[in-house]
């Protein structure tokens, strides 16, 4: 019995080896097999989607317009509003559309499902004119009622589609619209359907970045019929109006989308199929790109980027910065309550060294707590000069000519804005040592770290922030508004003037006016140094040179409607 098994195993191994060896001419033979094969499989598929057999066949014969987008992790959920995961919005961006949209490479707002919009002078009423003749992937019509249903779903935990019992929380809605239905700060007072293609939002108070919000992929529109039909499992059965419709999702592996033939824009999308493939290992992903198995790879190692630039068959892309890592200073604690000390530290940190060490240069030393390219980014301010003499002077001025001792809290986990906190903390410790500040590194587990820094136990600490809707408010107010001290403002920075500027900017409707207000706030912050922005990382990615019209968006989610493959 035993050697019968051995023989079987020998046989199995032989097969595997033959498979490996004969793979070279597999393509030609595959063609022949396929002809008989596809007809057979057609007959057997009963519950597959109708078009699948065709699309598969056309996908095979055309072959070209199937794009494989490889990334490091899978999507959490395909219900965009209940997650803040970037890998999720990357996919839902293709399936869903919002009322407005961002320009290809910036956070500038443009038309989306609404081709036009009006804002009342008091900034309290927004009217959107919706595209006509748009249908969802399930064939139902897109109209103002659908928009209303979606917004009510997010605002009202008791809404029939809120799925609160299934753990759905629309945290981004709460953040962006000041809370939920019934909350004090909730800005949306009412939503009025004017007619099928016109909808009116009435606000309690002006919200400077309301339009920005409407362009976010978090607030896209789902087919109400799909919500009815799929209920809480809408997260695995997305139905939108976007250029691609959902086909299948094999978790931790791939999500398959196919061309939506009735897409509202003629001639788009150009691709027949998009496959989001999970390839967790950076090196493996690069190998797959080189061997032609994938077309776009996200999450390139900065160290590999230089090599890519040399390769003819590959193209290197940089995504504009949309985050920053910072060294926080607890402004309530001695000696950090003294702006002179804070400025001294600011002069002592060598940001370029950090950018070089961690991102191989694919990062910018940060000046402001807002990424460059954002509305109101103050480009008149210059980087705090890395100047140890000046730093020492400032310290002496503050009365610490003999140096001082301080705690430096270091993050226990890696984040996109801080891929290696341990190294950063060592660089900082070293830099501070040069001006006589002895930094003691403190390590905590992640949850206690967050709890204790929110409670203000720390002195120096490390954290960061990532953008979502491309509005400066999300950075500046969260991190530095006095009302957020003890939650997201862990520097406990309270400056009435800054608070006033930020509040005004939040309510202002005119974008230029907002930009001015933010610039002023940044000046004060720059001067007071409540936190030391370190770097804005610029993620790098690579595509095969066959991929055309691909433009990475700073939000990490770009529409692939115009992308095509040229091979």
């Amino acid at each position, binding site marked *: 019995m*035993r050697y019968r098994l051995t023989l079987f195993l020998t046989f199995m191994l032989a097969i595997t080896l033959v498979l490996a060896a004969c793979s070279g001419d597999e393509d030609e033979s595959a063609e022949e097999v396929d002809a008989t094969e596809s007809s057979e499989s057609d007959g057997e598929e009963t519950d597959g989607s109708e078009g699948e057999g065709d699309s598969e066949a056309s996908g095979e014969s055309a072959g070209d317009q199937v794009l494989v987008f490889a990334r490091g992790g899978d999507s959490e959920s395909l219900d965009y509003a209940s997650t803040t995961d970037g890998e999720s919005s990357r996919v839902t961006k293709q399936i869903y559309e919002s009322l407005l949209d961002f320009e290809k490479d910036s956070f500038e707002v443009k038309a989306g499902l609404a081709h036009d919009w009006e804002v009342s002078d008091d900034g309290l009423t927004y009217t959107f004119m919706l595209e006509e003749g748009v249908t969802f992937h399930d064939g139902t019509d897109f109209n103002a009622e659908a928009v209303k249903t979606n917004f009510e779903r997010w605002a009202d935990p008791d809404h029939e589609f809120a799925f609160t019992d299934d753990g759905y929380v629309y945290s981004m809605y709460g953040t962006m619209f000041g809370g939920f239905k019934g909350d004090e700060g909730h800005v949306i007072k009412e939503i009025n359907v004017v007619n099928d293609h016109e909808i009116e939002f009435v606000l309690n108070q002006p919200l400077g970045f309301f339009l920005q919000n409407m362009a976010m992929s978090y607030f896209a529109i789902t087919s109400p019929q799909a919500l009815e039909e799929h209920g809480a499992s809408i997260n695995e059965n997305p139905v939108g109006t976007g250029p691609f419709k959902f086909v299948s999702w094999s978790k931790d592996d791939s999500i398959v989308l196919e061309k939506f033939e009735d897409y509202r824009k003629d001639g788009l999308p150009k691709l027949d199929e998009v496959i989001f493939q999970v390839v967790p290992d950076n090196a493996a992903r690069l190998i797959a790109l080189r061997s032609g198995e994938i077309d776009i790879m996200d999450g390139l190692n900065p160290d590999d980027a230089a090599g890519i630039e040399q390769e003819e068959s590959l193209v290197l892309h940089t995504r504009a910065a949309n985050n920053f890592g910072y060294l926080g200073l607890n402004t309530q604690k001695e000696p950090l309550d003294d702006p002179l000390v804070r400025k001294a530290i600011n002069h002592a940190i060598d940001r370029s060294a950090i950018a070089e060490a961690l991102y191989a240069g694919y990062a910018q030393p940060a000046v402001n707590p807002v990424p460059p390219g954002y509305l109101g980014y103050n480009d008149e301010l210059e980087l705090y000069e890395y100047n140890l003499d000046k730093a020492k002077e400032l310290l002496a001025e503050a009365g610490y000519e003999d140096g001082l001792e301080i705690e430096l809290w270091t993050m226990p986990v890696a984040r996109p804005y801080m891929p290696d906190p341990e190294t950063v903390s060592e660089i900082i410790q070293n830099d501070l040592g040069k001006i006589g500040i002895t930094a003691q590194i403190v390590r905590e587990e992640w949850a206690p770290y967050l709890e204790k820094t929110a409670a203000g136990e720390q002195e120096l600490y490390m954290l960061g922030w990532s953008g979502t809707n491309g509005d400066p408010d999300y950075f500046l107010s969260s991190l530095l508004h006095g009302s957020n001290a003890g939650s997201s403002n862990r520097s406990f920075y309270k400056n009435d003037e800054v608070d006033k500027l930020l509040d005004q900017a939040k309510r202002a409707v005119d974008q230029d006016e907002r930009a001015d207000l933010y610039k002023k706030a940044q000046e004060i912050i720059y001067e007071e140094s409540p936190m030391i922005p370190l770097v804005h990382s610029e993620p790098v990615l690579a595509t095969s040179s066959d991929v055309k019209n691909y433009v990475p968006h700073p939000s990490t989610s770009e529409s692939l409607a115009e992308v095509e493959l040229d091979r």
Partner: protein
Amino acid sequence: MLAYTSRRLLMLVPVLFGMTVITFSIIHLIPGNPAQTILGETATEEAISNLEETMGLNRNYFIQYTAYVGDLLQGDLGTSLRTKASITSEIGPRLAATMELTFFAMIFAVFIGINAGIISAWKQNSWFDFLAMVFALVGVSMPVFWLALMEQWLFAQELGWLPAYGRQESRNPIDPITHFYVIDSILHMDMKQLITTLKHLVLPSIALGTIPMAIIARMTRSSMLEVMKSDYVRTIRAKGSGQFLVIYKHALKNSIIPVLTVIGLQVGVLLGGAILTETIFSWPGIGRYVYEAINYRDYPVIQSGILVIAFLFVIINLVVDLLYAFIDPRIKY
């Protein structure tokens, strides 16, 4: 045999109970408030208290545990915090993926390992023996990720023979039935798909199977050498039988028992510890599922993943024990 089997099954009960206690405790053993850990730096207090409410973290431990075990008994592993999907349905395909990979890795390891061990023992101190044992030593100490990347570099990038990642071609996915893709492609009667699936299995199986292969080879060799010295092998040779019969019938069966122990342990290790291989080869398996859940602090998934892996481990070792009894008539049932 029946009594032995049922006794072994009964002995599982306390083991399973212990496992549930341990997995249940995981969430309460991490420092700090679990809800804060899960939600991260942008969490509001309200979100934290909401989550505590949903997860029942504010109830007393006993009630929480009872509810946990009650759900488990109904086959309900809970809901993933991250994806809001039922863990039971999420874990199935991943388990299948891991089991398929483990199966082929073990076939590779067992086939090569046992044969190399046998030939080494047979031709003791020959150049083959020497080479095989050097190779086995290297195999044991070789970092899996390095081997995996070398395989990818050579067979995927340079030679283009085999795919670098995944269980199937992205551009031509399979329609899963059992989620064991080899079985699925047979069920679909799709020869091309079967070949593709097998091709995807080659590199990760080798990467994953190399360490067990080396261990099995060394174990088989020493076990064979022991058996070859035994009186009954001398008897069989005195009967006039050839080496092949001696080795593949008698010596192998006798030396397989310690090897079987190793195989059982290794299967367990592979099931739970294939994270590296699964990551490098983009294998959507259970190791990566748990690993990612750890990154995202998705505690229900961590609990369930560990529970399922531990359960499989226990079952495999049970099977190994039953196999002993099957192979060796001296083991009392």
